[in-house]
């Protein structure tokens, strides 16, 4: 029996735990076939286990006093950069926590919404596969593997968009599938190009090679353009202008709990991928960017791909804020308002990312990333909760058209209260979670000294107030319509909404630990060396024998020094197999 594998430590096994839990839950619900109660039970157990596993990652890897800050898992025991590495660091953990909270809420909600639909179809297995794709995308440390998880996520979401099978659902699904197939092709093209340019797809290895291209004998020039391709793919997932057009139809077509998950979790995968690739992987690349049009002159110049990313994201983000805000004001259904609103809100997340990419001051970059993350958390909670609230309104009244609604507040005060808190969080009223998100975004813009950005953000905030007020007035205040008159809100759905509302209030009031977490996440996102070191500790110090590396304790670089000088120095840049060279990084 030959098993040449590294035996992982406890932290390391934790990294893969959330993925295994959703995978087993997906297979379990499939095996249970046509027993809806058992399926729901297994789903809930999986959701609870997922929450526990993510909380354990949060604590043991990121937040505990002696936490390593990052943990890795080498799938199949194949060492990085050859195998697939899973990395849980602050940024991944922050994103996973967001998904876990909104995912479990929408899972409980689903059980009350869909008993009759699930009987003959695959709702719960697909739900878990969607969660699996999102989880994998947050954890993977490999660019091609990221593509695979995107596909897993998309396959499940295709079916959900077409779930009800009516004409408008099929139409929405057709657009959604066509657009995403195109995006996947572009993604693959970008990944292939990056492999051809740098010779690796492991993110840590990529970062190391791009920081010292000469040592590896590569010309990193094409990487900027390839990164542009990837950026457009991630912008499609995040729904940034000009790739926002699929969002309203797809969000209206999918079942409400799934829409909550699409807006709360899969959208954030796009944002996560932009932050991870831009700041962790490509930030140290030494490439001069010089974009000039003969008639106009130099448009942008810088010595890092970040200058390019920043400029593009900035345009996309501000356009999203305006398009989303203006679009939301005129919609005639609650889903429509929220779908356009989520285009605008993603703009609010993209703008601080753009600020972080354009600035050269480390402190401003840090605060801008924190702002983007806190805003993303707020958006996941508030928008997820609002979409669930629309689901509850639809269960109760059978409609979500603003014209048919009115006076819901007197009919179901608790449902109305939850919707109200969600809207206020979206607007950014203290002490809710949204206030800190908006505050940090404004703070980052002010520190970067950009007046025009501040004005745009302010305009976007005013639009938020306008559409949130309109949606609230039309559906919850005023005369009761016939649809509302005999509406009965489902108690379990309302309980889920209230739990989320309490979470939003709690995040706002007890903001200090959340800030600490977001701070750790931003540090992890910006700490390329730490990431490289966590994935591959024997790479940063020359001469450590690869066979002795303990993948489990591979964080923080503590073990690296021991090997110094035990082996003759290898010449950097000799081989394509980079276990033979090291010491490029400070």
């Amino acid at each position, binding site marked *: 029996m030959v098993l040449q594998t590294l035996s992982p430590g406890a932290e390391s096994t934790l990294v893969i735990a959330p993925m295994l839990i959703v*995978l087993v839950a997906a297979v379990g619900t499939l095996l249970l076939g046509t027993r809806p109660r058992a399926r729901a039970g297994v789903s809930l157990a999986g959701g609870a286990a997922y929450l526990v596993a993510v909380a354990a990652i949060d604590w043991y890897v990121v937040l505990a006093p002696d936490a390593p800050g990052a943990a890795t898992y080498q799938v199949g*025991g194949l060492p990085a950069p050859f195998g697939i590495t899973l990395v849980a660091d602050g940024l991944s953990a922050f994103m996973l926590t967001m998904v876990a909270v909104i995912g479990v809420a929408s899972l409980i909600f689903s059980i009350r919404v869909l008993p009759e639909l699930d009987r003959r179809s695959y709702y719960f297995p697909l739900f878990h596969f969607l969660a699996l794709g999102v989880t994998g995308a947050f954890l993977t440390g490999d660019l091609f593997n990221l593509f695979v998880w995107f596909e897993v996520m998309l396959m499940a979401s295709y079916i959900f968009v077409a779930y009800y099978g009516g004409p408008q659902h099929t139409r929405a699904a057709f657009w959604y599938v066509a657009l995403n197939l195109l995006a996947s092709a572009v993604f693959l093209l970008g990944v292939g190009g990056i492999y051809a340019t740098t010779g690796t797809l492991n993110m840590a290895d990529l970062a190391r090679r791009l920081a010292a291209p000469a040592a590896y004998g590569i010309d990193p020039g094409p990487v900027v353009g390839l990164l542009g391709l990837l950026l457009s793919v991630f912008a499609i997932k995040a729904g940034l202008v000009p790739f926002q057009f699929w969002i309203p139809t797809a969000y209206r077509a999918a079942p409400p709990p799934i829409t909550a998950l699409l807006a709360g979790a899969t959208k954030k995968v796009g944002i996560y991928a932009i932050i991870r690739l831009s700041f962790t992987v490509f930030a140290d690349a030494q490439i001069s960017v010089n974009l000039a049009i003969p008639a106009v002159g130099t448009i942008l110049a810088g010595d890092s791909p970040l200058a390019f990313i920043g400029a593009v994201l900035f345009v996309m983000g501000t356009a999203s804020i305006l398009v989303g805000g203006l679009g939301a004001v005129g919609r005639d259904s609650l889903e429509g308002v929220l779908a356009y609103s989520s285009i605008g809100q993603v703009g609010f997340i993209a703008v601080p990312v753009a600020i972080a990419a354009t600035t050269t001051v480390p402190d401003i970059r840090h605060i801008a990333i924190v702002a983007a993350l806190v805003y993303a958390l707020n958006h996941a909670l508030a928008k997820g909760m609002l979409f669930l609230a629309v689901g509850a309104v639809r269960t109760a009244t059978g409609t979500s058209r603003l014209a048919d609604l009115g006076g819901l507040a007197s009919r179901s005060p608790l449902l109305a209260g939850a919707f109200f808190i969600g809207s206020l969080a979206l607007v950014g009223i203290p002490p809710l979670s949204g206030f800190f998100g908006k505050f940090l975004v404004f703070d980052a813009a002010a520190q970067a000294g950009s007046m025009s950005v501040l004005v745009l953000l302010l305009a976007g905030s005013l639009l938020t107030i306008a559409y949130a007020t309109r949606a609230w007035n039309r559906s919850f205040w005023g005369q009761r319509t016939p649809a509302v008159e005999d509406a009965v809100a489902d108690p379990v759905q309302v309980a889920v909404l209230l739990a989320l509302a309490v979470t939003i209030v709690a995040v706002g009031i007890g903001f200090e630990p959340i800030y600490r977490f977001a701070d750790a996440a931003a540090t992890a996102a910006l700490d390329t060396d730490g990431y490289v070191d966590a994935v591959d500790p024997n790479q940063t110090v020359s001469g450590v024998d690869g066979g002795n590396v303990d993948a489990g304790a591979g964080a923080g670089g503590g073990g690296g020094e021991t090997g110094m000088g035990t082996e003759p120095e290898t010449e950097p840049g000799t081989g394509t197999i980079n276990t033979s060279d090291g010491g490029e990084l400070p």
Partner: protein
Amino acid sequence: MTTVIMRTTARIVVPIVLIVAISLLIEGHNLPGGGFIAGVLTSTAFVIVYIAFGLDFLERGVLGRDVDPGKTPSRDRVVVAYRRLFTVGLAIAVGSGLVPLALDHPFLSQSYIVLEGVPLYHHLEIASALAFDLGVYCVVIGGLLTIISVVGAE
């Protein structure tokens, strides 16, 4: 009904396709091949049968069951079996990945064992990757044939 040429060709080709598929499955872990391609090839054999003899042939001709022609294909016993095969395959693949975890190795770790002195073969190599491949094989056959029979009936 299709032509005599088509049906005669199908009789000859289908066994060959199936044998090639199984050989691809078995040697896939260290030679070109594997669960996916073997599954696709096996599905192709079924598709040839479907094209040559019609959608009901498998149930009526091979399994000797009565087929109610008005029934929706997704309720057919054969399609139910395909879907079950898909699920079982997925369970096998995931399970084969989980076994190394129980033995304190990373998820999806693989190994192999060499048996000497086996009758006929002499030297036989059994790889754990075969279990994963088998799972993939079942998933591909189950998934593809479900789609083909349901969409084909429409």
